[in-house]
């Protein structure tokens, strides 16, 4: 058990800042470092306790080391079936156990429960609701609504592109916003892509943090939102300030109270998510069928996909 705690501590420390990509980012690095480290530490000291307390019995870490200890026995087997060994050798560098990145997961018990909850939420509410919605609104209309919201999220993409010194992409985003908001009728259409071949460059603050070397931290499944990790969850906070729907509650509409406006903002955001879901229901269902173990599958796929997106 103590070994497990040490392992999770070590993986937390991997949330370190790597060699800075550019010297001019030094100040930003220290800034992020100082501000977030305190927060990380508070969350971590809670989580490591929670993680160690909940993961009972022989942990995975222990069972894996056991298997490694037994590894020399493999040579006997290999001698009996030499052709199998040859098959593996060609891929040794790519698929060795060490080559497969392990995900820090001290909260796996909570994460599993939340994955189950989200899956139930999908089956009981999201899926039937979006099927009903799809029956009323044709796919073309839903695509338009999706593009409309996507266009409104331009400040988010622009800011994070700039923060990652991707000025060219930020410029393309601006051009897209200008074209789509006008010629594209408030963003319901995407002439920027269709006529000028300008593609969107989605970037969020989690990716920005990753760009400056902040590691993912432990994996964290969020209610309704699904797989995430410590870094990306923290990233949601600055991102929220760049999403127009957040400011809906600040717009003064006569005859409405503060709480009404918050409800309106939540309603609009829920509608956006419902609309998005209606366009990708089958994708989740298909992924779910691929999974032998839904939680492990979603966790690994998420972490790997984020790694790739940060590198881009």
């Amino acid at each position: 058990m103590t070994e497990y705690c040490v392992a999770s501590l070590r993986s937390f420390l991997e949330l370190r800042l790597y060699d800075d990509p550019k010297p001019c980012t030094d100040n930003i690095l220290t800034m992020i470092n100082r501000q977030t480290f305190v927060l990380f530490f508070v969350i971590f000291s809670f989580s490591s306790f929670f993680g160690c307390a909940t993961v009972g019995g022989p942990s995975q870490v222990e069972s894996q080391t056991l298997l490694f200890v037994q590894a020399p026995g493999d040579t006997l087997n290999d001698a009996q079936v030499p052709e199998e060994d040859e098959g593996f050798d060609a891929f040794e560098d790519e698929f060795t156990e060490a080559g497969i990145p392990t995900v820090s997961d001290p909260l796996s018990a909570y994460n599993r429960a939340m994955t189950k909850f989200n899956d139930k939420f999908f089956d009981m509410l999201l899926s039937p609701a979006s099927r009903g919605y799809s029956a009323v609104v044709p796919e073309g209309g839903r695509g338009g609504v999706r593009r409309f919201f996507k266009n409104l999220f331009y400040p988010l993409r622009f800011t994070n592109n700039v923060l990652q010194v991707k000025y060219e992409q930020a410029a393309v985003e601006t051009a897209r916003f200008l074209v789509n908001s006008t010629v594209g009728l408030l963003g319901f259409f995407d002439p920027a892509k269709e006529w000028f071949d300008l593609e969107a460059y989605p970037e969020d603050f989690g990716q920005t943090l990753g760009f400056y070397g902040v590691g993912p931290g432990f994996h964290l499944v969020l209610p309704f939102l699904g797989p995430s990790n410590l870094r990306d969850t923290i990233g949601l906070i600055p991102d929220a300030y760049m999403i127009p729907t957040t400011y809906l509650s600040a717009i003064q509409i006569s005859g409405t109270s503060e709480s009404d406006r918050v409800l309106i903002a939540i309603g609009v955001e829920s509608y956006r998510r419902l609309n998005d879901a209606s366009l990708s229901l089958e994708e989740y269902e298909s992924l779910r069928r691929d999974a032998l173990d839904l939680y492990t599958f979603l966790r690994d796929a998420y972490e790997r996909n984020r790694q790739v997106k940060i590198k881009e």
Partner: protein
Amino acid sequence: MQKAVFILIGLIFMVQPAFADNIAEVDRFMKERLDGIMRLLEDKTLQKTTRNEQIIDIISEAFDFTTMAKLSLGKKHWTRLNKEDKTRFTQLFVERLKASYLEKLDLYDDEAIVYSKPVQVKNKVQMMTALVSGGDKITMLYKLYNSKKAGWRVYDLELEGVSLITTYRSQFNEVLASGTMTDLFAKLERPEK
């Protein structure tokens, strides 16, 4: 000195075509297969079952299913299996893989496919493709190796950077960490939902 330069140039010319040949071969091989699949998908007159059978025929030429099964289970577990279990596992895994691939194609049937030029990575070749629809792009990276028997074959596929082999392997590890091969067979046979 001059001699050395000539030898160097000579070497470059000798090595270069070998690389270029591989690239060109993979490029041609994969494009033929993928174009074939796209043609089948666009042909709305075909019955879905016959269409799927033909798609499976095409991908069976391109994919080295046996190697994919082995790699996804990993050396550690694979070498412990007896012969029947190896056959059983391969069969179940391949069935699952085929079903999953067909399902993915169903999701993206109206999109255009964009090919990038294959690149050599060590002694293997990778070819990036992208399915484009509207403003969205889904990348699929086909990874091929040169099998002595059958030439270039796909041994892994990365969907949006997520490797199929790695994903399956970590799940198999997870199942086998707390269960037996029998549990794994049961899970492979009966998808969760």
